[in-house]
């Protein structure tokens, strides 16, 4: 069936995303959510159990959550594709998903005969796809209100799956549960009022019937939170405001920022949640929010049963550069840190600061702060005031370093792989009018500073894919990637020691994860690859597949829009 005959895809295609004075807004979205069913009988009827989710990291045939397993490794144990045969990897098909929208995210794969792929993109659009054939089985577009404001784009990065349901966050700061066989709505919960600036774009996670989801809107003066819902009924179980009132001066807590706008990571052994916390508000003028602004720009460790904070590790105290901590945390088991005589689990992440952080999982004590993954020039310097008629260009820029791009960890190589930006931004500070629901950036950022302002020591490379040893913090290899666009999307590693990543230049690359040597490259598009690679083995087809979404995303350095789902395969 042609995608133009699918009324849910058409509704998504007709939705226009525009940058306005307020931020990004969606226009011409459907007044009511639209479901289009094509061949729902093809979806095998069985529950995705907790046991399946617990074992998802070891399962070759599935990709059951945003980062494959609760520990967020984005690593497949499938070894069909190897360093020796990766050159034979072929394009299975490409599919237009039918949206002029953000193409970030990770499809989810439920194993079966056939497997079912749940693929999302902006604006709050999801499809069930038979990934063997590239057939859409049902599609759904959420009715996003046009008064929802978004800092950066109309992203949707994926779904959570549990039993007979999938869960989609929505641009109006909601969670929409859908029947995964039919696409029909099961329940909807609003996590916060989008008219106050809240929104939602990430994939939630589910553990033992509890769904965990966060908050976005840090550029709109909100107060960030994380919350848990009963995945069966949509009843709210608890809500945690990320920034404690006693750590703020007076009423400044009311608009503290401190959202968490990426998927949480979960440790099933300790039963603890770990997640990133974003920037304080306002972004650049710290004088109205004195103090370190706990727990902004941090890793937060939370008890999933009651939402109590166990610890926080802050990367940028009293941040004035938008160095919110954005990427998903990882849990790495039984890591040997020889120089500390430490063997045990760690929590690990890369920051917008460009440093990596390796932390003790029960206390959050910093074990290793890694070498900078990119250049650091004029870093952590007071933002000059506009009236001083001086300004500076800083590296990392306000997007990092390491922004939201989901990293991968490969146990075989012992390395973590990060997409990073090495983009100089000019920054200075001013007062700016604030209205509820509108941006109130107290600073001015020029993402294309005049050439004469860029420090001489800048190496001119806009981005890089970087391999880091979490035990030492050493940058083991780095592949600079040059472009006039920014490097978005995530990475994926395999049991055969391969690393897969898309680039902003429209390439998909397979690296030797140990050395950084490029073993295979495929030019999929002239559009940026902003999605994250996922992989599964289909015993029915006897193939290992790799899927990735192609098309620009973001509010800066995005390049032209595209709307392709690209699937590669190799026969066993």
């Amino acid at each position, binding site marked *: 069936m042609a995608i133009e005959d699918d009324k849910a895809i058409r509704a998504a295609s007709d939705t226009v995303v525009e940058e306005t004075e307020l931020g990004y807004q969606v226009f011409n979205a459907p007044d009511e959510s639209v479901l289009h069913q094509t061949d729902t009988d093809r979806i095998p009827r069985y529950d995705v159990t907790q046991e399946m989710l617990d074992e998802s990291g070891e399962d070759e045939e599935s990709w059951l959550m945003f980062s494959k397993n609760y520990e967020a490794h984005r690593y497949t144990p499938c070894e069909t594709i190897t360093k020796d045969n990766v050159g034979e990897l072929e394009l299975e098909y490409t599919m237009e998903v039918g949206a002029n929208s953000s193409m970030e995210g990770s499809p989810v794969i439920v194993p079966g005969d056939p497997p079912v792929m749940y693929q999302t993109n902006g604006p709050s659009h999801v499809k069930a796809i038979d990934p063997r054939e590239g057939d859409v089985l049902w599609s759904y577009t959420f009715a996003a209100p046009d008064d929802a404001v978004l800092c950066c784009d109309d992203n949707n990065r994926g779904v959570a799956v549990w039993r007979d349901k999938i869960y989609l966050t929505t641009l109006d700061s909601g969670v929409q549960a859908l029947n995964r066989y039919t696409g029909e709505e099961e329940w909807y919960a609003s996590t916060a009022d989008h008219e106050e600036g809240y929104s939602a774009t990430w994939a939630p996670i589910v553990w033992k019937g509890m769904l965990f989801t966060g908050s976005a809107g840090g550029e709109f003066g909100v107060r960030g939170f994380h919350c848990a819902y009963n995945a069966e009924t949509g009843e709210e179980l608890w809500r945690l405001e990320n920034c404690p009132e006693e750590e703020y001066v*007076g009423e400044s807590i009311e608009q503290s920022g401190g959202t968490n706008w990426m998927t949480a990571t979960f440790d099933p052994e300790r039963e603890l949640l770990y997640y990133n916390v974003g920037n304080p508000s306002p972004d650049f003028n710290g004088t109205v929010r*004195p*103090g370190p602004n706990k727990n902004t720009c941090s890793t937060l460790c939370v008890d999933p049963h009651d939402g109590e904070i166990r610890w926080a590790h802050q990367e940028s105290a009293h941040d004035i550069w938008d160095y919110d901590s954005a990427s998903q945390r990882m849990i790495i088991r039984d890591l040997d840190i020889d120089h500390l005589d430490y063997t045990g689990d760690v929590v690990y992440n890369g920051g917008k600061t460009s440093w990596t952080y390796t932390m003790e999982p029960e206390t959050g004590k910093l074990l*290793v702060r890694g070498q900078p993954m990119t250049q650091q020039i004029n870093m952590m310097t*007071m933002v000059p005031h506009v009236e001083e008629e001086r300004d500076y260009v800083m590296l990392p820029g306000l997007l990092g370093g390491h922004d939201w791009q989901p990293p991968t960890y490969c146990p075989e190589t012992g390395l973590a792989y990060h997409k990073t930006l090495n983009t100089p931004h000019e920054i200075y500070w001013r007062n700016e009018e604030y209205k509820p629901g509108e941006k109130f950036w107290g600073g001015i950022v020029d993402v294309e500073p005049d050439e004469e302002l860029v420090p001489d*020591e800048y190496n001119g490379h806009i981005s890089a894919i970087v391999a880091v040893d979490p035990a030492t*913090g050493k940058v083991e290899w780095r592949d600079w990637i040059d472009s006039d666009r920014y490097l978005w999307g995530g990475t994926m590693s395999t049991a055969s020691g391969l690393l897969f990543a898309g680039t902003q230049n429209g390439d998909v690359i397979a690296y030797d994860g140990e050395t950084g040597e490029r073993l295979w490259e495929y030019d999929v598009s002239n559009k940026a690859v902003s999605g994250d690679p996922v992989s599964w083995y289909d015993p029915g087809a006897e193939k290992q597949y790799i899927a990735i979404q192609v098309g620009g995303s973001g509010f800066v350095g995005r390049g032209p829009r595209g709307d392709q789902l690209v699937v590669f395969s190799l026969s066993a």
Partner: protein
Amino acid sequence: MVQSNVPQPTVEHRQELASTLGVGGPATGERLTVDRLREAVDDDPDEVFTSIGETIRTGLSGRLDAELLGEERSRMVEQLSRTSEVRAAGIPAGETGPAVLYRGLVEPAWRVYHHLAAVGFFEGIEENLPSFTPDHIEGTARELVQARPLSAALAECGFDERERMALMLNVANNDTRLSRWTPTREIPEGVEFDVEYVPPLHRRAMGGALLWIRALDDHLWRKEILITDDILDDAHWDTKAMLGGLYLMATAAHDVAAGEDGSLTDAQLTATLTASTAVMIVNQEELMQDVFWITEEKRKPSEASGREEELPWQ
């Protein structure tokens, strides 16, 4: 011997201060001291400062608890005497979390802060104090130089002559920096936040100083692998300076609460409120930069990965 990174005023700094006060700069090799400045500065009280101080006293009359403020001031002096001991302890001990070191130093100051917030003290002074203009800073510096009770009080708290000069320089030589901290009433309607969510300037300064000091235990413990002795020395001085600023704020509040038994003139009260706020602002920003923003150059080198300069950037 506990080290403390008290800023060493440069010749340029001293010249700038002398110029601000309208007195001749120090001769070559001569040390500029508060006592020398006092001899050189015109000792007529500033009428504007007197008027502001009087209005503040009247507005806050009967609201403040003199007994509480007096007791907590004494406790603040005790805590100030412990700063060297806290520095000597280095990184807070603890297996699962930090022992109490720096948090202990600010317990009495927190009680003062909560009392002042509860009675509307900060709103009362912000209503009357001007913003940090060069003129206001100059007047404040003049009054501070003349205010023997303040100099004596700081000396009792353990600030030696060099440290008192450093505090003075923080006030007198930072008008540009201080001007970034806009009084809430001067934030144009609709700017930044709904202004009702921006606390009064002097509350931001005092609350911020307290929060920064309170955060030190956890910060130093959690990031122990990055912390050098130099960072700890900076933490010592920046904390001590903020405690001095907090003490001056408590002193001003206590003087208002004491009514006719107060020892400060109205002009000195105005100067004390401004100076304490300035010291708290400057030194919380210094602490932030010295101790919390630990760049690659500043960190304790890693045993495992070496330094940034070893990285091949090209």
